[in-house]
């Protein structure tokens, strides 16, 4: 065979190979998530969203499939690192999950060392995106929660706020943002830190009642803290106009479990309850969720779904481009600009989503009504309005 023929044959073979379709891939994604320990409830709820995202992706993509490998991090930072390393050894190309900034921190650093993307919605501390990691992404942040609370207070014209906050990293950060942000607007802010083990809030509420005399109380904590604070407030009845909080408060679960405490209480929320889904994707999500778990989705499930869907789509695009093992998922995520069930998402160089702003919902008659911002509102806020 002449050298010309060999050259032509080689070029033809190369052209054929280049034109050949990329094979369908099974994308193994690791889910490192707390399914036991103190964060089991939130981890379990996020995990449901991840399962729904997997089901929907596998149904709709038509080419690639996602296989989720789940490992319980037992709400422990050390176990989370071990889980990430084990999942990588089992073939995971990226990670979704994580809850608690103190757990996500070391787990995402382990992922960075392995050169694999770590996607979450469970850690809002700003320190997480100041570490210069190339593979860390999250769809929400402390700023989004603080912005929502400040937005509502601004709309209501509130002049003084007492902030009761847990000394955990994320809660303390949101509280400090409120202190700075509201202070800059001339609102009088008093701060009351509490240890996460606290379960009697009467001494704090009593101080607020007798010394601070604010117009509003802001609770920055978790479900068990909210119940303790609201019970203490219901007994001591401070002369305030509204009581608000952040995550895990304006939810269907709290409405059903503690109806005597929740009336007129507001908190950050992605959805009204009963949920009103407007886009086709959101309707499909809610339908799949209902089918899989026999209940309506809550905000943790929604976040778990959104973070996983974005990750799966990016992994699929990277597989198409043949860059799955060459940092392609991170590259694809950085190109992402999309509307999701929680609003617009794009990622900056630190992996943060600067578009994230939460909404505010208020418990009204066993339902959660979105009351802020105006363009997302499904009803009007009851103000002044208290649970007693």
């Amino acid at each position, binding site marked *: 065979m002449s050298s010309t023929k060999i050259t032509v044959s080689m070029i033809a073979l190369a052209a054929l190979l280049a034109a050949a379709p990329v094979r369908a891939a099974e994308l193994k994604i690791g889910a490192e998530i707390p399914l*036991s*320990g*103190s964060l*089991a*409830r*939130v*981890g*379990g709820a996020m995990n449901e969203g991840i399962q729904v995202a997997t089901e929907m992706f596998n149904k709709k993509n038509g080419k690639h499939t996602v296989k989720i490998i789940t490992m319980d991090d037992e*709400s422990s930072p050390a176990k989370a690192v071990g889980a990430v390393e084990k999942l990588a050894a089992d073939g995971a190309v990226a990670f979704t999950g994580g809850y608690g900034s103190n757990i996500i921190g070391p787990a995402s650093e382990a992922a960075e060392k392995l050169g694999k993307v770590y996607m979450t919605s469970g850690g809002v501390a700003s320190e997480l995106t100041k570490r210069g990691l190339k593979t860390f992404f999250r769809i929400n942040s402390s700023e989004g929660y603080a912005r929502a609370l400040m937005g509502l207070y601004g709309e209501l014209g509130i002049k003084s706020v007492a902030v009761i906050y847990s*000394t955990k990293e994320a809660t303390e950060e949101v509280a400090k943002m409120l202190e700075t942000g509201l202070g800059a607007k001339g609102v009088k802010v008093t701060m*009351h*830190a*509490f*240890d996460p*083990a*606290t*379960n*009697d809030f*009467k*001494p*704090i509420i*009593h*101080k607020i009642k*007798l*010394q601070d005399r604010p117009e509003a109380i802001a609770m920055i904590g978790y*479900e*068990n803290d909210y*119940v*303790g604070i609201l*019970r203490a407030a*219901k*007994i*001591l009845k401070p002369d305030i106009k509204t009581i608000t909080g952040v995550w895990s408060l304006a939810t269907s*679960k709290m409405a059903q*479990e*503690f109806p*005597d405490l929740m009336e007129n209480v507001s908190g950050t929320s992605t959805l009204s309850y009963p949920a009103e889904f407007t886009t086709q994707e959101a309707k499909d999500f809610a339908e799949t969720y209902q089918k899989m778990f026999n209940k309506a989705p809550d905000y943790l499930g929604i976040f778990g779904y959104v973070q996983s869907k974005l990750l799966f789509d990016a992994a699929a695009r990277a597989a198409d481009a043949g860059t799955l093992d060459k940092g392609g998922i991170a590259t694809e995520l950085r190109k992402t600009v999309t509307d999701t069930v929680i609003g617009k998402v794009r990622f900056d160089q630190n992996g943060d989503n600067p578009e994230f702003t939460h909404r505010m919902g208020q418990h009204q008659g066993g339902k959660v009504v979105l009351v802020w911002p105006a363009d997302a509102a499904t009803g009007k806020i009851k103000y002044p309005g208290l649970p007693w």
Partner: protein
Amino acid sequence: MIDLIAQSLFSGLLSGAYYALIALGLALVFGTMRVINLAHGELVLLGAYVSYTAEERLGLDPLASLPLALMVVIAANMVVYYLISLIKKDRELNSLILTFGIGVILTNAMLMIWSADIHSATTPWYHDAVILFDTLFAMQAELVFAGAGVVLVGAVWWWLEKTWYGRALRAVASNRDAAKLMGVDPRLTEILSFAVAGLLATVSGLALYTAKVIQPSLGHNLTVKAFIITVLAGIGSVPGVLLGAVLLGVVESLTVTIASSALQELAGMVLFLVVLLLMPSGLFGRAKRRG
């Protein structure tokens, strides 16, 4: 400021009585068998979850669920005792490891059965306000179970000091072989000790369910709190449990009022260390030696 301090002292006393209720079962077993039951907090939580199930499924008032909760918790504690009784060597140390493991198993079993969701009693009466002298505020449940705590501490003290079984229990704790020679059945007295500890854990569980919020991961914290109070009290001292618990409750509460709630756990630990530094045998341990 006087109103704040008064409320703080009142809250501290109520918290102290509640702490005493939780610690008493652990202190009893520790004092009589030299066994630290690290699953005690999980047993308290088990009582709370039985009460929750009875309220949710059967519509029973939490207090009415007491017999059912007693049966479950005492049965569970009997299993703990049986497993401990199988230990033939280094019982003090090996029982620590065993009960820690039982605690982990119980936590995960509760997680599987009841999920990680938070729960609390829904009967409004327990959460209604009680206002004393126009300045002191509490929930009905807090007053009821603080009273129960004081009464049970007194009852356990009376039982140990004044009854034959109580004295037999102390005799076994003091010298097992000598007690045997006196006709005491050590096994029976130890079973009795675990049964009473189960009863105390059940009442603590009801207090927890009605006045606070329950979730499966809480057991470990309850055990730690109970252990601190037991050591603070002085090993085997029942009145010491009440005094230590009230002291802890008041210090924590005053710290919130005067300084910050963020420091209350720290204040509790400082109290613990100071007492142990000055009185290495605990509050009542030294007093007994002097006597």
